[in-house]
């Protein structure tokens, strides 16, 4: 593996360079919690954190995005593509895998112009992370990222080991820092970190990934859905914190003079009550249990069939955000256990 070593001073100059040239969003702490935020100085960055509470998908697929302006007088419209040149720094391996999945979704068929344009102008920089008590990426094959990033930083005692994913990343690294070749001690230190990380997981999925679509296919009538459905709020939090949930609603708004209209896309979530509601007030998934079952099946089965890959990257954010303690590993393991018995 071609790796570089950047010392702390080099790292600061690298981040300064990014801030001057790009809009930089990176991981930092807000009131003690890991979040992605706009970064102005290298000191603000906190790399090596547990997962951020919200995923970085918001920078590629914003919660509310203007897509179109059109005139109510003559019907003429003008599409809006707002795609700033930006850098996302501090992406964990699971987030990088998730972005890879979103890429597949939004480039499917004709492709989503807004997403694709944003994605094209976004530089992805990964960092090594620390699992929290909900993480289970080691079970989902997403603990390491070998591709899907421009650069990837591993924090070491005296600096950073940097892996290069793209030519764009290499040029960036060389322009803003003075990278040296990584030597064997650096690689050794990185591997030690990885081993420690692997030992620190408290949650796992007790089946091979390939088995999961079948486990879910056989669990449609399992009592777990009714049980967790009775606790669920239907609040959509699990959808919104999920790095791979991509459903959206389209809303129109008009200006008060009734001359111009704006078309937005807004995050939607399959656990929300009116997600599957149609004309006449009919609802295909009226009960929370049905909606939860749908969400879990999307992650482990439906989208696996459609896009060839599980849509859960094991970040554990949905479990963390759930106020009634619906835990994705517990649910999945219960289904696995009963599928085998």
């Amino acid at each position, binding site marked *: 593996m071609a790796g570089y070593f950047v010392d702390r001073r080099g790292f600061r100059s690298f981040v300064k360079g990014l801030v001057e040239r790009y809009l930089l969003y990176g991981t930092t702490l*807000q*009131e003690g*919690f890991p*979040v992605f935020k706009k970064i102005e100085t290298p000191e603000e960055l906190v790399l090596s954190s547990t997962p951020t*509470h*919200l995923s970085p998908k*918001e920078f590629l697929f914003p*919660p*509310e995005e203007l897509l179109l302006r059109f005139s109510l007088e003559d019907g003429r419209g003008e599409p809006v593509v707002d795609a700033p040149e930006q850098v996302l720094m501090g992406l964990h391996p699971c987030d990088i895998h998730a972005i890879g999945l979103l890429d597949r979704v939004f480039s499917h068929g004709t492709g989503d112009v807004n997403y694709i344009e944003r994605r094209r102008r976004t530089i992805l920089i990964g960092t090594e992370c620390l699992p929290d008590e909900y993480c289970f990426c080691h079970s989902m094959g997403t603990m390491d990222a070998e591709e899907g990033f421009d650069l990837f930083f591993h924090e070491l005692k005296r600096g950073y080991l940097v892996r290069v994913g793209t030519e764009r990343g290499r040029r960036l690294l060389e322009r803003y820092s003075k990278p040296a070749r990584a030597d064997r001690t650096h690689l050794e230190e990185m591997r030690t970190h990885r081993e420690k990380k692997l030992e620190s997981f408290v949650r796992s999925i007790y089946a091979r990934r390939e088995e999961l679509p079948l486990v879910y296919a056989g669990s449609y009538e399992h009592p777990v859905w009714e049980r967790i459905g*009775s*606790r*669920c*709020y*239907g*609040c*959509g*939090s699990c959808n*919104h*914190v999920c790095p791979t949930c991509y459903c959206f609603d389209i809303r129109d*708004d*008009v200006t*008060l*003079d*009734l001359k111009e209209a704006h078309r937005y896309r*807004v*995050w939607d*979530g399959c656990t*929300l*009550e*009116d997600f599957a509601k149609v004309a006449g007030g009919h609802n295909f998934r009226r009960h*929370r249990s049905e909606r939860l079952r749908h969400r879990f099946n999307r992650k482990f089965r439906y989208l696996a069939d459609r896009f060839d890959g599980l849509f859960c990257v094991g970040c554990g954010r949905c479990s963390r*955000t759930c*106020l*009634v303690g619906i835990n994705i590993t517990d649910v999945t393991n219960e289904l696995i256990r009963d599928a085998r018995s």
Partner: protein
Amino acid sequence: MRWIKRPRIAFFSLTSCEGCQLMVLNCEEELRELSTRVDVVNFREATDLKRDDYQVAFIEGSVTREEEAEKLKEIRQRAETIITLGACSTTGGINALKNRFSPEYVTECVYGRNPPNRLLVENIPAMPVEEVIEVDYRIPGCPVSKEEFLGFVKALVLGIPPGLPEYPVCNECKMEGNICVFEKGVACMGPVTRGGCRAVCVSFGSICWGCRGLLDDANTDAHRETLGNHGLGDDEITKRFDLYSSFYIHRKGRCTKTTT
């Protein structure tokens, strides 16, 4: 809802702080344009006009006096469309907290044992407007949000029936990028409260108090348990639910419906 290109609208106030009417007046940027879309024919806080030929009536405040119930019936006869404005008129709001006590007791608490004029302080248990007359649309909130009010006005002049979100505050709270207040060890009513406010209170460092009322599909049992798990005792939990939703939670108890 019949489409009226330029409706004549009126604002009425029952028992309330009148803060929701103030929110309407707070639409400073939009008032001029608003006045070209609708004719305001009755609005005590904004104009001397007191005409009765309105087609749409916005009603703020809860019903806490017999006279108010009578006034509402008159308004219902004149208006084609009735829209409640704010928590008090929509759910009874915080006024309904007094329903836990007898009218005599609350009167004495506020006015003393010998009020100068008994007729002026006579009151009945507080209730939302829909307990007295049929309501067509509801704008919840304490106070209402400007954006939501303007959205209703736009819907009116476009002839589109306005609606309310059926999702909890958490939905928009996540979109606003807030750290969940429960993570910080603080309890909140967001998970059972109707969204549509963009989680403004949490975004500005507070918590959700539930001013937009409980969702139709609110999982209140789960929320009682969540609040308990976050250190609230039974009394405190009841108080949180009661603050804005006590009328509907306790309606079988003390509130008596005035006939429509």
